[in-house]
């Protein structure tokens, strides 16, 4: 599955971006917050090892972009991890339990679904603070819902699948059936759902930071950079274009990856 052509390209791109995020900052002589008085608002590659140019305060864009990528990826990772853990647990319980418990849990999920997501995130961040941790937490508060639904539906479907029935008739203990037959067959779906969740989180984080609700100055996040860059669009377009392109590449690679896994999963199920 990993080697499939459709997966290779987005995966490669993603890995490149992750690589850049991790070590890109180390390669540059500049720190993200460091101010270079002599080179303010310089175009990319013109002076002083500023490969991506500098902003109005003389801060190196490459360093800030790498830091921004790092922050976005980490926040998304944490938010995804919380969502997956919570979503699959609730989904599994609802899928396996009696009707009463299942209905209760699903009503809860549907109820939370009805709340306006962005508003909720805003409320959480204003109360808990605006660091990456709280942002991740805020995003995860509702991010787990679709996963819970999908997991519950798939668990329910698998439960009545002939091969699960065959496993019961064979005499396998319930835990073995769950771990050996149910979960692995659920795994494909989970991977797809998670892969499609990540780009949404990235966009959300960027959006919030852009509005000033996510990460705030002087921290560099993709959203911040987009927000700052927007202000100097006519004078220094690279300040907007480069972060925007990075965001596009990141989201596109994640989405392609998710879609490739989903197609693969659907084809196998057919």
């Amino acid at each position, binding site marked *: 599955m990993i080697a499939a052509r459709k997966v290779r390209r987005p995966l490669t791109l993603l890995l490149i971006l992750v690589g850049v995020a991790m070590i890109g900052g180390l390669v540059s002589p500049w720190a993200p917050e460091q101010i270079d008085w002599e080179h303010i608002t310089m175009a990319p590659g013109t002076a002083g090892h500023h490969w991506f140019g500098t902003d109005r305060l003389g801060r190196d864009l490459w360093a800030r972009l790498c830091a921004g990528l790092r922050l976005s990826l980490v926040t998304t990772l944490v938010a995804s991890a919380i969502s997956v853990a919570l979503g699959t647990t609730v989904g599994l319980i609802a899928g396996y339990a009696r009707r009463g418990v299942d209905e209760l849990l699903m009503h809860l999920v549907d109820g939370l679904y009805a709340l306006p997501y962005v508003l909720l995130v805003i409320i959480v961040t204003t109360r808990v603070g605006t660091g990456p941790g709280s942002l991740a937490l805020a995003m995860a508060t509702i991010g787990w819902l679709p996963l819970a639904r999908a997991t519950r539906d798939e668990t329910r479907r698998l439960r009545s699948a002939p091969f699960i029935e065959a496993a019961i*008739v064979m005499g*396998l203990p319930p835990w073995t059936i769950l771990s050996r*037959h149910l979960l692995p067959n659920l795994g494909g779906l989970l991977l797809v759902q998670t892969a499609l969740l990540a780009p949404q989180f990235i966009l959300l984080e960027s959006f919030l930071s852009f509005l000033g609700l996510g990460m705030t100055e002087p921290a560099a996040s993709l959203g911040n950079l987009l927000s700052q860059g927007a202000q100097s669009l006519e004078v220094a377009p690279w300040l907007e274009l480069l972060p925007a392109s990075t965001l596009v590449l990141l989201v596109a690679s994640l989405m392609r990856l998710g879609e490739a896994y989903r197609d693969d999963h659907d084809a196998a199920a057919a």
Partner: protein
Amino acid sequence: MSTLLAVEGLSVRHAQHRRSYPAVDAVSLTIASGESVGLIGESGAGKSTLAHAILQRVRTEQGSVRFAGRELARLTAGELRRLRPKIQLIGQQPAASLDPRFTALQSVAEAIVLRAPRQSRAAVHLEALGRLADVGLAETLSAHRPHQLSGGQCQRVAIARALASRPELLICDEITSGQDALNRLQIVRLLAAARADSGMSLLIISHELAILHQLTDRIVVMHEGRVIETGSTSQVLEAPRHPKTRALIAAVPTAIGVLPTPPDAPRAMPADTGCRFQSQCASAVAVCARAVPPLASVGTDRLVACWRAAPSAEAGASEETF
């Protein structure tokens, strides 16, 4: 021969469209150790439901199922689970009954490991390969997953897996449905050989009367949830006593250029009292409308539930409604 399976007065209700009806109605059946019994009847007669009820996979309203003397409904979950390998079922959907992520070998090996947890991996592997070879699956296919195998091949894997549990009773539910004659013959030979090897009992549910000739000692005929006739295979198939059994047999094509006889269309709405078959029966008489015919003896080990076939049962029968 000791009794392996004793089903007594088993009833299962099925709910559909806001009404419930008896899918299995007071069915009694015994299978002795080493015996092979065939179960025939129209679609919807309750055969599969009976099989699942024996396995304790559907809820029963009444009656009991005793396996090797033990009442299955009284067992704890753990006891039932430990007993399960002794009663195995092979169904109609071979590909779907295999875990899509397991290779043929892994599916069979799982049953072996459950039976003999202390066996070394090498021994399990060897036995699994052997069992697949026994069912005629080429070794190259043992690493294939269900979606890479044909329906007939999946069925063989399912058979190998069921046999790997070393069951004392094997229930086969329409396992040759939709297979060509060559495959069907192989499956029949397979089961006959397995039975000869291990002395296991068989319960064969099938529409195909041809298979029953080869594989079964006795036949039980069901109609709308009830047992209507039992007897040895040759008796039931060659000299059927119940009109429904006769109709079932007449519906099988047997000669070149001669169309099989379709069942009579029901002449009237199903009646509330009396024999359930009367509206389709050409030989119905007055008593058929009054009371449900009980299963009465018409010879050694020969039972028929029909007023015409067993008139002596009328004496002492009370009016029953259902």
